[in-house]
């Protein structure tokens, strides 16, 4: 029964939404690549029991991503834990996973956080795994896996805190572009942990127009707005130990603090300014 349901789960897993040409605005240091290669080799050669082991290192297909998620989730053995100490939503997720009554969708999310060029592993993107109850279709949990397949962040849904629907990147770009008069291309999901917050499990949609990048920021409690990173806006690459509140940053990237401008991490310890785009007077919000 279990194998049948797993097979069904894999069959209904959405095809991995690989952006046609994933893009970013900062590159890792070439001299760090040897370190990342060593980490990748360690993941690929790790044995069960190792803190680096996943059954499908550096997965490239939804079934491989799902296999890595399930292995790591099941290895927590929450079924042995005191049920009263489980996180909200964990019992429902645990039961569904153990009984194989779940389905999955997997999408790719570009990593614009400091972990893109991390201290050990390079993770240009995350796989966002969405876990659904097969019978009801209710989304139980979302988790991000690094490009290596190693688990990163998990969040469970509850009746009080259901997930917001994940917007389709292409449709969002079209709607936003129509409202703002922008003809964009290359839409993709991004995670960013600046004050312009695109979180792991509810990422933003970003797209390009020429040398400019745009980030559409939707949030249930904050203002929905479009932000622009102009190709001409300076980039600041912090040296190890340098701080964002340094005079250097203030000189290179001065910014307003009224919420219309944000310091934007691009990964690779590189920062720039994202500026709010004003909606044309005659346009309706997307």
């Amino acid at each position: 029964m279990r194998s049948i349901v797993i097979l069904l789960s894999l069959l209904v897993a959405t095809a991995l939404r690989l952006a046609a040409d994933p893009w970013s605005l900062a590159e890792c240091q070439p001299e760090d690549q040897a370190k990342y290669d060593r980490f990748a080799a360690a993941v690929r050669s790790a044995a069960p029991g190792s803190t680096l082991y996943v059954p499908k290192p550096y997965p490239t297909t939804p079934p491989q991503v799902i296999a890595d998620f399930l292995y790591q989730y099941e290895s927590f053995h929450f079924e042995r834990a005191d049920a009263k100490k489980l996180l909200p939503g964990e019992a429902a997720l645990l039961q569904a996973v153990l009984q194989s009554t779940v389905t999955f969708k997997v999408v790719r999310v570009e990593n614009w956080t400091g972990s893109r060029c991390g201290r050990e592993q390079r993770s240009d993107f995350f796989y966002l795994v969405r876990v659904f109850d097969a019978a009801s279709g209710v989304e139980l949990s979302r988790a991000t896996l690094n490009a290596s397949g190693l688990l990163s962040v998990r969040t469970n849904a509850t009746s009080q805190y259901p997930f917001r629907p994940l917007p389709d990147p292409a449709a969002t770009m079209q709607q936003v572009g129509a409202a703002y008069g922008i003809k964009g291309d290359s839409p993709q999901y991004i995670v960013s942990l600046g004050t312009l917050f695109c979180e792991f499990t509810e990422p933003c949609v970003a797209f390009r127009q020429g040398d400019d990048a745009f980030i559409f920021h939707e949030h249930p409690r904050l203002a929905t707005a479009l932000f622009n990173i102009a190709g001409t806006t300076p980039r600041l690459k912090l040296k190890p130990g340098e701080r964002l509140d340094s005079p250097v940053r203030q000189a290179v990237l001065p910014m307003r603090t009224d919420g219309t401008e944000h310091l934007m991490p691009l990964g690779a310890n590189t920062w720039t300014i994202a500026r709010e785009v004003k909606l044309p007077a005659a346009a309706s919000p997307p």
Partner: protein
Amino acid sequence: LGVFDQQHVVAVDGGNWHVDDNTGLYVWEEVLFHDPQSSHPDSTMAAGDWLTFNSDSVISASASAGSTGFLNTYGGNVAVRGSGYRFRPPAV
């Protein structure tokens, strides 16, 4: 409190770990945190990624002193999920 990428503050609220049957190591699995900007409470981050993301920590002086003691006691016996990193107790 933890800080991601020098800007984004989260409140740490716990985590999970286990003792590996084969190695006897304390394996630090995940950190539980609450993110004020998130639309959901109770997120967890794998311990290995926490070591990358958490650029700053805000802790009390007594916690800082205590952490040295904890590191002396457990540091060499701790492994980190999703990382090859090993803690080393401070040289005495």
